């Protein structure tokens, strides 16, 4: 008995759901809490109605029951509860809708979770994952669209992950759940509906290892998250003009695989850092500084940054589209390194 098979592809949303489902099945200490992740539980007849604000966890309550908990609209309470549960032997995943809301529970994250291992002499572990949406493009205005990855990358003791497609989302989330440190897992909203080839078997991608997704000799483009796809578009345009580029997907911002970036810059001599975050103290600024310190002698020209402007994310669709770094801006920056 044989059947024909095609490649299996999943959207980003489905890939995250599958990662959580498989880890909850594998390890009973994995639990989930968040706002509306069960959706209407407690309201008769409304169980599993939502699965989180954009439906990522839909269906998981039916499979894993009360290991998924709807919480009150109080980030400071449930993020604190998740961190406490992690300190006591559970492996919680907390869904915090938008990274923009992280401000109300920041003490729990950067003063508590990030410090436990250090302040208890290495004897305490805090295996918590805080899943959160990042990025602009969904017409969600200034308080639901920010790319705050640099804020969390600043704190020692936190790991910060920002995947670029559905395959990466599944493998990096599974690794983050299994990791014994607190992880801020940043999901770009625009990837939820984009499909990629995703194996059904559970798999995990190590944290702290960048991925060279396009190879070339003339310039290095470094980025992460959804911008990886924009950078690949730019690389195609540049290739048509005979300019070949390395495109590096950092995958994780903390730890940061600066070695892969430096190796590439030693080959190409030109660097463009692309970041959807605001420019000041951004990942782009951080990578630029590290490369100029470690590989200045390899640089043939000044490093260029392509970032959002130093403004809030605009609500006007026209302005929001102009706010997000474009493939055209990346192409121009690469060309500018050769002028």
């Amino acid at each position: 008995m044989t059947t024909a098979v095609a490649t299996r592809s999943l959207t980003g949303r489905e890939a995250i759901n599958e990662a959580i489902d498989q880890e909850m099945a594998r390890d009973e200490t994995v639990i989930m809490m968040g706002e509306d992740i069960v959706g209407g539980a407690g309201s008769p007849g409304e169980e599993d109605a939502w699965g989180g604000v954009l439906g990522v966890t839909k269906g998981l309550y039916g499979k894993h029951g009360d290991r998924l908990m709807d919480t009150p609209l109080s980030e400071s309470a449930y993020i604190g509860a998740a961190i406490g549960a992690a300190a006591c032997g559970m492996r919680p995943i907390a869904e915090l809708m938008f990274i923009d809301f992280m401000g109300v529970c920041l003490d729990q994250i950067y003063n508590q979770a990030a410090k436990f291992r250090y302040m208890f002499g290495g004897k305490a572990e805090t295996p918590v994952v805080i899943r959160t949406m990042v990025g602009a493009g969904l017409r969600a205005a200034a308080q639901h669209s920010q790319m705050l990855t640099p804020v969390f990358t600043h704190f020692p003791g936190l790991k910060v992950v920002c995947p670029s497609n559905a395959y990466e989302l599944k493998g990096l989330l599974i690794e983050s759940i299994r990791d014994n440190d607190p992880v801020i897992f940043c999901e770009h909203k625009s990837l939820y509906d984009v499909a990629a080839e995703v194996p059904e078997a559970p798999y995990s991608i190590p944290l702290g290892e960048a991925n060279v997704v396009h190879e070339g000799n003339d310039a290095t483009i470094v980025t992460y998250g959804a911008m990886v796809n924009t950078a690949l578009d730019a690389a195609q345009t540049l290739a048509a003009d005979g300019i070949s580029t390395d495109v590096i997907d950092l995958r994780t911002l903390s730890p940061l695989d600066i070695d892969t970036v430096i190796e590439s810059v030693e080959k190409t001599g030109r660097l463009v850092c692309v970041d959807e975050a605001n420019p000041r103290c951004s990942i782009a600024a951080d990578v630029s500084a590290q490369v100029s310190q470690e590989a200045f002698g390899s640089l043939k020209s000044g490093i260029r940054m392509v970032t959002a402007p130093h403004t809030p994310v605009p609500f006007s669709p026209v302005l929001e589209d102009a706010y997000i770094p474009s493939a055209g801006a990346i192409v121009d920056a690469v060309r500018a390194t050769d002028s």
Partner: protein
Amino acid sequence: MVDQESSIVPIVMPKWGLSMTEGEIVEWMTSEGEEVDAGDDIVDVETDKIAGTAEAPAAGTIRRIVGEAGRSYPVGALLAVMADPSVDDSAIDRFVAEFVAPEPEEVGEEAAALYSLARVGEVNVRYSRVGEGPAVVLLHGFGGDLDNWLFNLDSLAESNEVVALDLPGHGQSSLAISDPSIDGLASFVWSFLDAIGVGTAALIGHSMGGAVAAHMTGRQPDRVSGLVLIAPAGLGAEINQSYIDGFVTARSKREMKAVAPLLFADDAHVGPKLIEGLLRYKRMDGVIPLLSGLRDVWFTGGTQHVDVVADLSVKPTAVIWGEQDQIIPADHASAADGIASVNVVTNAGHMVQMEQPREVNEIITGHLASL
């Protein structure tokens, strides 16, 4: 006067294996106006599986280079035009303008339909089956998959029905091996062939798959018409243990980059996409313990624990080895002297069938024709 149209030869994006839909031009190794011989390397191409080199389809002059370095083109797209120097530029222009490349989607759908799944006991086996004629079965090596035959499948399928499978625990077959011994794997492949209705076949095996193919021949000689062993295990004692152990434990890019080049004579074949492809397999839960278990049965302490020399004289056998094999030394081929045809291929390492496919395909085709 040369016939203007008929002397024009298109050079198109090659199709290496079932799943290839497009390739990226890495570098041209020729230029417009240059004369080339048939088989000369003309362009480096990287696919999502491997970096390779396309060869000139005929002798002649490169008149026009259309494909740009750094860009991806679908299989069949026009990359360059060869023609006699006397052909007018206008005729070349017309040829380029009128050339119709196939739609990439069509190629993709065809590829998707060419993989099949068979159920053998509790194990799902992914395989592909192409061509018509006497059956040929391809068995990959330790840690490999059916894409190791990327450059061989189409050529062999011209006059054979070719079946290539992912062995259990490999590629996209189930991640389980109930019996990792040579006998267990040989029985498994026979059961798989029963399940898909292949009775008698020529067996072609690479490395560990070569030893399995030889053992299958010894066990059921009536079902085997002939044997081709490519850099096979089981003809001598030594094996590169640091490669085996490094491959088994590698989970990161750095670890994989330290061992993957040992598979080739020319490490230019090992691009980031090949490394990422290997890591996609290695990252799956259970692969590392599974390969460790397989390793412990087959290869430990720099020594192979299988010996298939006696199986080589059962059926007509050809042995092919890459001269610069860094995994299993090419001098193991001498164990086959006098009982099999022995072919040592230059400028090739352990993955000789990927590195020098034209020569390997010719040897295989010649051997199959003699059966």
